């Protein structure tokens, strides 16, 4: 019978069917960070359980990390959480990439860098953006802390089989339109609950043309469409990424040859059936800017702020609440919206290609006087690479701040946050109320669009630059 990529991985990881009808799925990689794990380790301690497969479990600290003086965490509660991870990893024998490590970074950025993320595997992490790893043809899903404890104790996860949703992007993206715009467009079309209950498989020419980094951006935001996971079938671009030197956990030599032969069997069979299908013409996608407090409140940069009652999928009252919070009036052209802050970072858009794209816009230009710009690389490896290429100089010369790696202002758990009323062009993934700081106003955009807005002081259509 013809199978989808997801079904092939699911079947290969099915340990047993539980008496209650759930499937018990084996987990190949468990990624851990400091925020959602302490209560899980404590649960193990209380029940006298061990980590079943510590060698398949990898930890880093990213959410609380200051991006200026990273070794000096001033907030005692943040410090205690980071220290708890160190202690737990030591006690349970889990490999930790801590703040002294050259390989520390946002958990979803270092997984692929280290070669932990490979096609056909199952990956979980107590973080909703675990969907990022699906870019490699991996079944990767975010879980809660009870499930983190479950995987630590059993290396398995009871799951109800999700439905499958094929999203095909026909044609090619136009120049200056990015993976970020592609996925924001999808969320605008299907809504933030449009993928709930599904695993999305992205396919089509526009997806095939994306680099691994672009594919990670797309899969990363699957959760913003409500999807359990996002996936892209592996191909030569995937194999080339994994084969690069410096990925300690990736298969090598004969193992790699055997692995690639297996990975080539993973793509969905041509006649495989999906529970839902959608086709989008990629060539019609324009640069996207969110205007509200839900990632589905998104429009082309050429649009005007909508009237309540005229936004598909949102009740008039939802739109009124969002506009009130965002301090915006219907009819305002998006390109008239002035910004105070620009954040270039996060597991969505803080890989080297994102920084190169932003730097290309900043090069030789100055940030508008009223705008503060934070560039936060996704990992220490990205930071080093960027500095080797001189990108840090470009950012600093234009007036942007060049920081150390971490989650930073994406969720503002560390000292990087917006003040009430401050308006931010952000390359992150969520524009929820208060996400980047209480009262802060977030507009989600691509790195290029964020950089262009930093220079102009307001949103601009990157295609006109």
């Amino acid at each position, binding site marked *: 019978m013809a199978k989808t990529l997801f079904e092939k991985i699911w079947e290969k990881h099915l340990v047993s069917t539980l008496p209650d*009808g759930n499937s*018990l799925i084996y987990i190949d990689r468990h990624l851990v960070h400091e925020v959602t794990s302490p209560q899980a380790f404590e649960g193990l301690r209380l029940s006298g359980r061990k980590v079943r497969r510590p060698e398949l479990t990898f930890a880093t600290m990213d959410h609380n990390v200051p991006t200026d003086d990273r070794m000096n965490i001033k907030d005692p509660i943040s410090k205690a959480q980071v220290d708890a991870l160190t202690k737990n990893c030591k006690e349970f024998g889990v490999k930790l990439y801590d703040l002294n490590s050259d390989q520390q970074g946002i958990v979803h950025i270092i997984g692929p860098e280290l070669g932990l993320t490979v096609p056909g595997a199952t990956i979980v992490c107590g973080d909703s953006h675990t969907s990022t790893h699906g870019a490699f043809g991996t079944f990767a899903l975010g879980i809660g*802390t009870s499930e983190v404890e479950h995987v630590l104790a059993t290396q*398995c996860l*009871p799951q109800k089989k999700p439905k499958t949703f094929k999203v095909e992007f026909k044609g090619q993206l136009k120049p200056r339109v990015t993976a970020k715009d592609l996925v924001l467009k999808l969320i605008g079309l299907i809504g933030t609950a449009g993928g709930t209950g599904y695993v999305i498989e992205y396919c089509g020419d526009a997806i095939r043309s994306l680099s691994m980094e672009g594919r990670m951006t797309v899969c990363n935001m699957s959760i913003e469409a*409500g999807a359990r996971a996002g996936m892209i079938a592996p191909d030569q671009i995937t194999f080339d990424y994994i084969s690069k030197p410096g990925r300690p956990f990736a298969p090598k030599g004969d193992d790699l040859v055997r692995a690639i032969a297996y990975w080539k069997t993973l793509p969905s069979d041509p006649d495989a059936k999906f529970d839902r299908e959608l086709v989008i013409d990629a060539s019609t996608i324009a640069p996207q800017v969110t205007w509200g407090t839900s990632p589905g409140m998104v429009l082309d940069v050429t649009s005007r702020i909508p009237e309540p009652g005229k936004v598909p999928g949102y009740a008039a009252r939802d739109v009124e609440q969002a506009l009130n919070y965002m301090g915006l009036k219907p009819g305002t052209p998006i390109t008239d919206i002035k910004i105070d802050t620009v954040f270039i970072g996060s597991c969505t858009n803080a890989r080297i290609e994102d920084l190169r794209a932003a730097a290309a816009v900043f090069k030789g230009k100055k940030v508008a006087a009223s705008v503060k710009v934070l560039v936060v690389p996704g990992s220490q490896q990205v930071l080093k690479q960027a500095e080797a290429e001189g990108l840090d100089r470009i950012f600093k010369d234009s007036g942007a701040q060049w920081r150390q790696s971490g989650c930073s202002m994406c969720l503002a758990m560390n000292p990087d946050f917006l003040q009430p009323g401050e308006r931010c062009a952000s390359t992150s993934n969520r524009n929820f109320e208060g996400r980047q700081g209480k009262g802060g106003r977030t507009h989600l955009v691509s790195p290029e669009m964020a950089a262009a807005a930093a220079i102009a002081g307001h949103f601009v259509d990157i295609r006109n630059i």
Partner: protein
Amino acid sequence: MKPLKAHNGIVATLDRANVDTDQIIAKQFLKSIARTGFGSQLFYDWRYLPDGKADPTFPLNQDRFKNASILVAKNNFGCGSSREHAVWAIDQYGFKVVVAPWQDREGGRVPGFADIFKNNCSKNALLTIELSEAEVEKIFKTVDAHPGLTATADVEKQTLTLHAKPEISFHFEIDAAVKERLLNGLDDIGITLKAESDITAFEKTHTSYISR
């Protein structure tokens, strides 16, 4: 996990769609390494004024919803971050049941709760009930017409009954595995460990083509 067979309590309504987990429990409270103490932090940015006083315009601060333990909101409740702290906060505030509407849309039915949130609820004996938009509208209207309205959620019978005059009862669907766990207060890890021999056998032959 404690069993939850049925729950009776006061119904509170929150007229908001897409209530995200950032809003349910703000980031500054995720720094705790404990599993308790989140109740007073629930809906922090909506609940408190800048001076720390309760915002009287926020529904849960109003007398009519004092001691409420059944929360009714709009579509796509619990979207966003996977933080289980959101469920702990709702539970520790005193809610035992959350109700949200599914929606019929082009492409199929859209669930009322986000996946990870709903999953996290099932690990904490917090009952999630999905009803149609019309049924949830009916609850909002009934609550407005009956100050202090109470309701009973019965897991066994899969009914939510509003104790209005006359009583109004809704049937809800629930995943069989979740129902069994709620009724019996089962420990998920304990269930999985009963399959220990299956896991060990699986590990002997499983190759995921990843370097170890």
